[in-house]
């Protein structure tokens, strides 16, 4: 009875089941493709830069980052982490990387996918598609995999101008030019590897699908500004996966349409994701995948997590009328992840789009507090959290609860302590609600 009540604490979207099934199918497709001798790629999350190209060339992509989260949730990660450390990699490196390195070592030793690997495991790929976006692990780790398998690595470049520099003459244009040229090189590389030419019409279709998925996903998340919020972060984290990994699939587009419709219905019916929404929270950065029921406990207390960090969301919509080259469309959309936020950051005088984004969203989504989750093995996602905490308080009088954890290593996250601290944090949120009212901050 208690377990049933816990499950109902968050009113999950009905469509989430279908999203889960689609993600599970993604893993199985990878295994089947490999068994059938079809080419597979291990790909980093590349913010839509490489995936459309893989899709257009009929290469099935498998995502070790997501697989790391799956292993953590399944309880399988620990053995892979230990194996990775035994191979000589420092224990502080990314949990997803350690999971993959440990998994790969075992797979290559056995000559087959380990029997205990969750979700059917990850088959040996023909290419490792890494990305220079946001953290060094995302290309160094794939480079390190060369120790275990002779598979070529391609690094997708992700230019990262400073906020101030983004506004200087010519910077946007030469950045896009660079990205387009790099994508052309990547296409040539894949053509040589696979011994076949790119189907440019197919790529255009895939990119069109991707753009529609991103727009729908963006619009669905805009609806979460409603009070009560119709969709909890737990649903976001499930439903974001196809947006990243399967944006070129028609099935994904259908699901995002369904999701949008369901969220819209809830907004119209004033149905919240939490029965009695007392507090609205922003969560940064990646959640404790291994302990997601933590949020159910908080939901019982009326905590509704209404929005999450910027870079897991679709970029701001972009008008690409007149741009017919699919590679240029990809480049502009990918760069929009940052470029769409630079003007806001410049106006606000902020150091980084991540923090200016937090400020905008905490205000727009009327958040009473933020839960900041520094990740011991993900410095990239953790880096700005203390600065963000200070800026949120200085600028908006919104308090933050800091709960240390990790993306994969469940030993780091102390759920009991976090729940205790959350209890005390309620008073803090109440206090600053009064302060915001007094200061005319609007919510």
């Amino acid at each position, binding site marked *: 009875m208690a377990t049933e009540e816990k499950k109902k604490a968050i009113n999950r979207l009905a469509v989430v089941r279908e999203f889960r099934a689609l993600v599970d199918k993604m893993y199985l497709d990878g295994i089947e493709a490999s068994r059938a001798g079809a080419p597979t790629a291990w790909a980093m999350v590349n913010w839509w830069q490489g995936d459309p190209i893989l899709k257009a060339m009929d290469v099935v992509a498998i995502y070790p980052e997501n697989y790391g989260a799956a292993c953590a949730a399944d309880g399988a990660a620990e053995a892979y982490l230990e194996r990775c450390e035994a191979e000589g990699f420092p224990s502080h490196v*990314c949990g997803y990387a350690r999971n993959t390195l440990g998994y790969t070592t075992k797979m290559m030793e056995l000559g087959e996918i380990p029997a205990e690997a969750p979700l059917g495991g990850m088959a040996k790929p023909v290419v490792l598609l890494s990305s*220079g976006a*946001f953290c060094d692990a995302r290309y160094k780790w794939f480079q390190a995999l060369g120790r275990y398998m002779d598979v070529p690595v391609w690094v997708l*470049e992700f230019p*990262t*101008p400073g906020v101030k520099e983004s506004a200087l003459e*010519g910077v946007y244009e030469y950045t896009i030019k*660079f990205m387009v040229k790099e994508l052309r090189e990547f296409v040539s590389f894949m053509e040589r590897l696979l011994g076949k030419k790119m189907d440019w019409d197919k790529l255009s279709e895939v990119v069109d699908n991707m753009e529609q998925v991103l727009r729908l996903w963006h619009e669905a998340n805009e609806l979460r500004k409603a009070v009560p919020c119709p969709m909890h972060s737990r649903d976001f984290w499930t439903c974001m996966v196809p947006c990243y990994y399967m944006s070129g699939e028609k099935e994904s587009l259908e699901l995002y349409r369904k999701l949008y419709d369901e969220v819209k219905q809830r907004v119209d019916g004033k149905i919240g994701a939490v029965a009695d929404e007392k507090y609205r929270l922003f969560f940064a950065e990646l959640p404790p995948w291994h302990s997601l029921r933590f949020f159910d406990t908080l939901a019982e207390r009326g905590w509704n997590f209404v929005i999450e960090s910027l870079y897991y969301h679709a970029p701001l919509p972009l008008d690409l009328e007149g741009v017919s080259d699919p590679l240029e469309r990809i480049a502009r959309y990918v760069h929009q992840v940052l470029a769409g936020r630079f003007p806001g950051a410049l106006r606000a005088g902020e150091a980084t789009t991540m923090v200016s984004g937090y400020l905008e969203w905490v205000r727009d989504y009327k958040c009473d507090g933020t839960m900041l989750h520094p990740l011991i093995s993900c*410095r990239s996602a953790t*880096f700005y959290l203390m600065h963000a905490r200070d800026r949120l308080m200085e600028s908006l009088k919104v308090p933050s609860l800091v709960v240390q954890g990790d993306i994969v290593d469940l030993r780091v996250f102390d759920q009991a302590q976090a729940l205790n601290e959350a209890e005390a944090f309620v008073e803090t949120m109440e206090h600053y609600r009064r302060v915001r009212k007094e200061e005319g901050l609007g919510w």
Partner: protein
Amino acid sequence: MAENKGLARAREIYQDRDKRAKELRAQGKRIIGYFCIYPPLEMITALEMVPYRILGDMTEAITEADAYLPTVVCPFLRSCFDIGLKGRYDFLDGFIGVHVCDECEKVAHLWRYYIKHPYTHFIDIPHTLHDASFEFFEAELNTFRKTLERFAGKELSPERLQGAISIHNEQRALVRELYELRKPDPPLLSGTETLEIMMALMSIPVGEGNQLLREVIKEVKERKDGPQKQSARLLIWGTPIDNVALLEMIEGCGSNVVMDDTCVGTRSYGPDVKPNEDALKAIAHRYLKDIRCPRTFKETGETYRADLENRFNYLKGYATGWNVNGVILQSIKYCDTHGYEVPAVKDYLEGLGLPVLFLEHEYTMVALAPLRTRVQAFLEMMG
């Protein structure tokens, strides 16, 4: 006017790094601070400003930076930021941040937010060595040129730039000449002394650095009081070393550190800017391709062995040229760029028949003590 010369002068500058920079500032010179070894120093020198490398301080407890940065961030960068927040870099007229690793990138952005200088610029640097990467980097350097010119109030003409390239190349040649003096057995100067000289060079104008190097080279060639012969001749690889304590500890255990692969050493001074009519193109090529740092992705070979050769074969030259018989891989904790590299570089070096020790440390004086036992055991094992 400096009274000391040669090694004594190098030590003097090392011990009080910002003294000369502050004197120059008082005389009206502009001092431009920079992170890492990727900002093109030639461009700063050409506009008659003084490049000054921002480093940390292992002897100073990190206090203020902890309010802004998580403790799982590179302690070297946390230290740099910490002493910046404490005002120790207030004498800088400018700050240049670079995207060399993602932590350096992020600290650069926070630096600009919390520590104010009249001039700042951030240079994005590609990770790969494709043709498009060089074009992009040249464009970034051109953007940097424009903001630097505006601040300096003068044009960075091709003639000025070629002149600056010459003088910086001269320094690199002098450093390579200095490093030749570490080849004999025993080496004519210690790893500790070499580090003091390198850090001195990163703290003073390039012309003064060249003069210092000539004095040091002459003195060292003639000295009778150099290091003692030790059976262990070590190469030190890895993250920035900006305090002699680590090398003093290693050499104090009974070794000669005869060579390095770090950015306060060969990575910074190894390659020249090659002659080219297009100076910016030449600079882009030198900084992006010729600097050997694990932050730059080199295309994988067809096999793991081919990949190791492609990435690390210069270490064979160091090992044979300097008669190295052991290697210490040292890394500041939380460095991903070097952390992921360790098993591969270890494989390569062990493939050459070299014993290898990996030390990870937290960039504090206290952190060095427990490493001593491991170094001693390693040297014993080496025989």
